[in-house]
C-alpha cells in the first residue's frame, strides 16, 4: 500500500510539473495557436481575415485582387477563406460573430446585410471610417449606396451591382433580323416589339426563343418574375414590414405569370430546363435569348466560337426595372482597435481600387471612379448593360429574405412550377401564401 501511495504521488507531482511547464511555455509565446485560442488574442495582429463566398470566375478574380493586396502588405497580411454561398455562408458568419470569432472583413449580399445588421452581427461604418481611407458616400453608385443605408447608418460598402440581364446569341438574332447596322441588338422595348422578336427568333431556331432556368433552380425564376413585376407602374413590394406582411399586388402577379405561361404555351419560353441546360440552349443557338445574372459572362466567354451580347432586360411594361443585388463589404461585430479598423477599411479600399478586375466578371462596379472611367466604358459587353444598375430593384428586406434565402427558395419554387405550367398563377400564389405563413406570422428572431 505504502509503495502505491508513494509512486502515485510522484507520478502525480511529475504530471503536475509537466503540465505547469507546458502551460508556461504555451502562454509565454502568445503567438502560439493554442494560447491564441484560449485567450482569444489574434494569432498575428498583422493578419487580416477575410471571408467570402465567391466561386467560379468570381472566385479567381477575387483571388487576383487578394494577391495584389497581399503583395503590397507583405506575406502573412491576408487570410482569405471561401465558403459555399447562400444560407450556409450567412449561418457561418452569424455563428462566428455570435461566438466572438468573426473575420475582420466579410462579403455579404446587400439584401442579406440588412438581416445581419438587425441581428447585431454587423458594425455600422461611420463617415470617419470612410474618410480614414479617403472614401466618401459620393464615391458610390447612389442606388446601391441608398439601398445599404439602414436606420440612418451605413452598414455595408457596395462593391458592385449585379442585375438580371438578357444574353443574346449574335448569330441567331442576326438571322432573325434583330441586329442593327451598328452590330448591336435593336431595342426591344414594349410588349409587342418583344413578342414579335420572340416570334422571329422562334422561326430561326425552330422552337425555343428565350430560356430561363427553372428546374432544380429557384433563384432565377424569382429574378425574372421580380424584374417584370417591378416594370409595372405602382406595384407594391412582395413582402413588407420586415417580412411580416405579404403585400404582393395580386393582379400584377397574375399579369406577369400568365404572360410567361403564354410564352411557354407558344413554345417561345422553355417549359423546363436546369441552370446549365438553359445556358447551353442559347450558347448552341437553339435559343436566341437567355435570362440570367450578368455573372454568367465568364461561362459565355469560355464557349469557343460563341458570339454573344448582353443587354438590360427590355422594358415590357411601364418602366425599366431589373432585379439585382450587390456584393458588399461588411464589418462583423468585434472589438477592434483603431488600427485594426483602419486596416480593415484599408483592405476594402484596396479591393475597390481593383473594381475594374472585378468588372471583367460582369458585375457593374459600385465604385464611381471605376464606373466612370474610360477603361470601364471600353469594356464590351459590360458597358452595354451598365445602365441597369440605375434602376436596380433589391429584394424587400425581411429577416428570412435576400439572395439565396428561404424567401427566394419558397417563392422561386412555385414560380418555377408555374413556368412548367404545372400550376396556375392563382395556384402558385396560394402555395406561396401557405408556405410563407409560418414566416409571416413569426416575429423576427433578430
Amino acid at each position: 500500500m505504502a509503495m502505491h501511495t508513494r509512486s502515485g504521488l510522484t507520478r502525480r507531482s511529475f504530471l503536475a510539473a509537466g503540465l505547469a511547464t507546458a502551460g508556461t511555455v504555451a502562454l509565454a509565446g502568445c503567438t502560439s495557436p493554442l494560447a491564441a485560442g484560449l485567450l482569444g488574442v489574434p494569432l498575428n495582429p498583422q493578419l487580416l481575415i477575410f471571408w467570402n463566398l465567391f466561386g467560379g470566375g468570381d472566385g479567381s478574380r477575387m483571388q487576383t485582387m487578394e494577391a495584389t493586396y497581399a503583395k503590397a502588405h507583405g506575406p502573412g497580411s491576408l487570410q482569405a477563406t471561401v465558403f459555399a454561398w447562400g444560407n450556409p455562408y450567412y449561418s457561418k458568419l452569424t455563428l462566428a460573430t455570435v461566438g466572438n470569432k468573426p473575420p475582420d472583413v466579410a462579403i455579404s449580399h446587400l439584401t442579406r446585410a440588412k438581416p445581419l445588421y438587425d441581428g447585431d452581427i454587423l458594425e455600422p461604418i461611420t463617415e470617419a471610417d470612410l474618410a480614414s481611407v479617403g472614401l466618401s458616400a459620393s464615391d458610390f453608385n447612389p442606388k446601391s449606396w441608398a439601398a445599404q443605408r439602414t436606420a440612418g447608418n451605413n452598414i455595408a460598402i457596395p462593391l458592385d451591382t449585379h442585375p438580371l440581364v438578357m444574353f443574346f446569341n449574335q448569330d441567331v438574332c442576326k438571322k432573325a433580323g434583330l441586329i442593327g447596322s451598328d452590330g448591336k441588338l435593336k431595342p426591344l422595348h414594349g410588349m409587342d416589339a418583344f413578342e414579335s422578336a420572340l416570334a422571329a427568333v422562334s422561326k430561326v431556331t425552330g422552337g425555343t426563343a428565350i430560356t430561363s432556368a427553372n428546374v432544380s433552380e429557384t433563384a432565377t425564376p424569382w429574378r425574372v418574375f421580380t424584374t417584370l413585376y417591378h416594370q409595372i407602374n405602382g406595384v407594391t413590394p412582395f413582402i413588407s414590414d420586415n417580412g411580416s406582411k405579404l403585400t404582393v399586388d395580386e393582379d400584377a402577379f397574375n399579369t406577369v405569370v400568365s404572360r410567361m405561361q403564354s410564352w411557354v404555351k407558344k413554345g417561345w419560353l422553355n417549359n423546363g430546363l436546369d441552370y446549365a441546360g438553359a445556358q447551353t440552349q442559347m450558347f448552341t443557338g437553339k435559343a436566341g435569348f437567355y435570362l440570367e445574372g450578368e455573372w454568367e459572362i465568364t461561362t459565355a466567354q469560355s464557349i469557343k466560337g460563341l458570339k454573344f451580347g448582353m443587354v438590360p432586360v427590355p422594358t415590357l411594361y411601364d418602366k425599366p426595372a431589373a432585379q439585382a443585388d450587390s456584393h458588399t463589404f461588411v464589418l462583423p461585430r468585434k472589438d477592434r482597435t483603431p488600427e485594426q479598423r483602419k486596416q480593415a477599411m484599408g483592405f476594402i479600399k484596396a479591393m475597390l481600387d481593383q473594381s475594374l478586375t472585378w468588372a471583367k466578371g460582369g458585375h457593374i462596379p459600385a465604385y464611381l471612379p471605376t464606373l466612370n472611367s474610360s477603361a470601364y466604358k471600353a469594356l464590351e459587353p459590360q458597358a452595354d448593360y451598365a445602365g441597369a444598375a440605375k434602376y436596380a430593384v433589391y429584394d424587400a428586406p425581411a429577416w428570412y429574405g435576400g439572395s439565396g434565402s428561404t424567401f427566394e427558395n419558397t417563392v422561386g419554387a412555385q414560380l418555377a412550377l408555374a413556368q412548367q405550367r404545372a400550376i396556375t398563377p392563382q395556384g402558385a400564389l396560394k402555395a406561396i401564401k401557405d408556405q410563407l405563413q409560418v414566416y409571416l406570422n413569426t416575429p423576427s428572431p433578430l
Partner: protein
Amino acid sequence: MTAIPAVDRSVATVPKRSFTGGLSPVNRHDSRGAWLFLAPFGIFYLAFLLGPTIWMLITSFFNTSTVRPGLGSFAGFANYAEMLGRADFWSALWHTIQFTLYTTPPLVILAFIFAVLTNRLGRGQWYFRLAFFLPFILPSATISLIWVFIFTPATGLWASVQSALGITPGAGVLADPNTAMIGIAIATVWWTLGFNFVLYLAGLQEIPRELYEAAAVDGASNWAQIRYITIPMLGRTTTLVILLQIIASLKIFDQVYLMTNGGPGISTQVLLMLVTNTGFTDNRIGAASAASFLLFILIVVIAIIRQLFDRSAARREA
C-alpha cells in the same frame, strides 16, 4: 450524429449484479474514489449533454433567438404547434423514417450473412474482418466524397459502369428525388456494416461448437444448423443490433448534409437538418429546440420499447 450505433453495455455478456438493498461494505468504501474517477466524465456529461438537453427543453417554450442573449418572449406551446403544423416537419420526419427503413434491414441481414460466412473460414478470417470493418473507421466526410464521386452524373464510377455496359447514364442517383435517399442509404450501409458485422462475429464465436457437432451427428443440414442453432443463439445480438440501428438511423445528418444537402428540393431533408436550418439559418433556437424535443421524444419512445423488449426476452430466457 450519424448512423453509427453507440456501443451498449448490454452487449457485454457479463452477468448482471443484482442490487438487493443497500451497498455492500466494499462498495461503500469505494464510492468516494469511484465518484472521483467518474468526475471528469461526469462534468463533461453534465456540461455537454444533460445541460444542453435541459436548456433545449426550456428554450422550446420561448421565442429564443440565436443572435440575442436571453430567452426572448414566452411562446408556450406555440413552437410545438408550429412544428406539428408544418408540412416540411412531417416530410422531414417521413424522410428520416424512410432512411431508417432503407438502412436497417440490409445493415442487419447483410451483417449477419457476412459474419456467418466469415466465421466459416478457417484461414484468412482477419482479412475479411479488416475489409468489412475498414470503412467504419473513415469519417463521414470521406464517405460522402467517395459516394458523391461514384454517383456523379456522366463521369462518376456508376455512370462509367453503366456506359461500359451500354446503358445511357441518367442524371445520377442523387439528382433524382425518387432515388436520392436510396443513394444515401447505400453509402451508409457500406460505411456502417462493419460495426454490426463485428457484433455478430463476436456473438457467433460464443456459440458452443458442441451444438453444431451434435447437430451434425443428428444429420442436420448446414441450413438447418443456421436456422435452428445460429439464428436463435444470436437472438439477443439481433435485438440489440436492430434497436441500436433504428436509433442511429433516426439521428441521420452527416451523409445527407454532405451528399445532397437535403435536395433535390427538400426530398431528402431529414429532421436534424430541419432543426439545423431553423436554429442556425432562421436564427430561431426556440423553434429548433421544439423540433429537437419532438425527435428526442421519438427516440426515447423507441428506447423504451427496446427496454421492454429486452426485459420480456430476459424473462423468457429465465
